């Protein structure tokens, strides 16, 4: 496939989605530090790959199995800013879990965002299962599962990819390699040069891309999706970037990495690079940016207000939905 064409409108739309994710994320930290919400886990530094990948999918039919850093992915697939803050506050209206799960355990059936748990990598066999079911029904769609690079060491990664490979399923597995698994650096997680090198063991293409390059990510996912729909089976994509925040609001990353390292990585943040490029190419202007920021800020303010005031789950609901209401 030739290099894909991304229009200026698409560039702007992608950038805006990245920015929204970033601004929401930043707000979360403020709320956490102010004691308003108990927990934050961030996608900062991974927005570029998340949005670019999302644009290459079809949000009307594809199933996504995101992991906890994939704020930008679920926003693209239809979760609203308000939904996200309802989740952060653990409110009854939170569409992910009604306040039952910790923040960023995404799930929303109407948008085909498949419910996630905390134990990492369990979603990988699920993605194979969804792709299998879609294939059985002759549907033209893919399942798209993401995970961190540390998580590729779980047995379920191996078993899920192998299953998808053997049955040539329409699935895409994207590893968001941000160089750390909490405190453990890549070099202590794996001995291979690239996570993408694991693909050959499952008989599927393994593609490594710069996660800060939106066009490269877009193209890799688009090609993977085409292959999947053509019946050519799954793809493993590794997108590289860096985790710009501590692992979560409970973490102190200065116990295992240096401020210099983090500062350097912040200076080459993919979002900033993209902004610079769009500015240089005149696709983004100062005016447009101001407008965008204002709009996002207002959206985030409104969502925060709404979520803060929204009702908490009623303790009387504690025992609801353990089993189907019809069953038993």
């Amino acid at each position: 496939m030739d290099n894909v064409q991304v229009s200026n409108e698409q560039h702007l739309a992608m950038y805006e989605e990245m920015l929204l994710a970033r601004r929401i994320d930043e707000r979360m930290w403020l709320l956490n530090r102010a004691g308003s919400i108990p927990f934050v886990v961030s996608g900062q530094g991974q927005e570029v790959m998340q949005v670019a990948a999302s644009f290459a999918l079809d949000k009307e039919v594809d199933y996504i199995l995101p992991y906890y850093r994939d704020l930008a992915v679920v926003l693209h697939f239809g979760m609203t800013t308000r939904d996200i803050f309802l989740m952060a506050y653990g409110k009854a209206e939170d569409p992910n879990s009604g306040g039952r799960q910790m923040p960023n355990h995404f799930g929303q059936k109407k948008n085909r965002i498949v419910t996630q748990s905390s134990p990492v990598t369990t979603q990988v066999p699920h993605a194979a299962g969804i792709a299998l079911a879609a294939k059985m029904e002759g549907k033209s769609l893919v399942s798209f599962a993401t995970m961190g690079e540390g998580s590729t060491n779980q047995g379920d990664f191996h078993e899920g990819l192998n299953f998808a490979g053997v049955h040539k399923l329409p699935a895409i597995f994207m590893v968001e390699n941000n160089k750390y698994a909490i405190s453990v650096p890549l070099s202590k997680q794996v001995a291979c040069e690239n996570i993408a090198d694991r693909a050959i063991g499952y008989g599927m293409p393994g593609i490594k891309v710069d996660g800060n390059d939106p066009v490269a990510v877009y193209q890799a996912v688009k090609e993977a999706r085409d292959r999947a729909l053509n019946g050519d089976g799954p793809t493993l994509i590794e997108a590289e970037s860096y985790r710009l925040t501590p692992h979560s609001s409970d973490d102190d990353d200065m116990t295992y990495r240096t401020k210099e390292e983090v500062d350097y990585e912040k200076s080459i943040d993919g979002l900033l690079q993209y902004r610079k490029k769009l500015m240089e190419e005149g696709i983004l202007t100062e005016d447009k940016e101001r407008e965008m920021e204002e709009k996002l800020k207002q959206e985030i303010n409104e969502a925060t207000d709404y979520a803060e005031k929204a009702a908490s789950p009623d303790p009387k609901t504690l025992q609801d939905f353990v089993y189907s209401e019809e069953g038993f």
Partner: protein
Amino acid sequence: MAVLNYIQAITKALKEEMERDEKVFILGEDVGPRGGVFRATDGLYEQFGEARVLDTPLAESAIAGVGIGAAMYGMKPVAEMQFADFILPAVNQIMSEAARIRYRSNNDWDCPITIRAPYGGGVHGGLYHSQSIEAIFANQPGLKIVMPSSPYDVKGLLKASIRDQDPVLFLEHKRAYRLLKEEVPEEDYTIPIGKAAVKREGSDVTVITYGLCVHFAKQAAEKLEQEGISTEILDLRTVYPLDQEAIIKAASKTGKVLLVTEDNKEGSIIGEVAAIISEHCLFDLDAPIKRLGAPEVPAMPFASKLEKEMLMNSDKIETAIRDLAEF
């Protein structure tokens, strides 16, 4: 009405459910051309084809996990674990995922998967082809565990499990496969999950048990009847969550309760049964609750003499009932 053995009833239920509902499909190791190592899926590959009777790679967490994914999508997967002992690599998928999907999504998603697995000893299977594994899972709300005791029950309960909107662990005693035979109706019928069944009425002693041990309890009860001892037998059918009402009723009826399991006793299902009785029927009891289970050994040995020593049988039950009756 045809006489079927226990495993034929499994095959029949699977076949009928697959004919009834296109969304039902089977996945597992050797379930395809081989028809399963016990032949539970015999003929299904031929009838329904490769797409609906899938031989999977040798990986139980994937069997469960792929099934869970398909179930979330809207299919009705029936996953086979070749031996119940080999379900352990899939525990995370079953507990963290299948059992919690409805609750964690606040009823947005669900996971109607059935996981079948042959359990139990008495076939020279040694430590890893003989285990009772139900107790490991019997503390996970969101999951149901069904353990049928006869071919008739197999057909009705397996159909109910496949149609259930929630994940069901369906445990089949591998020694029952060819040992137990009875008439099984041709018609479609289901047996409600979550309800125990009185398999024999009696007035002196109540035996509460499940799975193959129901058969042994019946044998013992028949023998004791000749001695004038009348035994009530309650078959739990669903071992999780338990049918408290039926347990309380059966225990109160005779006031003398024997609980039986093939599993090693400490931490087994019958501990919970005893707890329910001791909470609810204390003043109806005429004797201490008696539990009969295997000794506290990690798993069943291979050598015949050791295996026999460990196994439950009707003699052990008979003695225990008699002791209780005489108490």
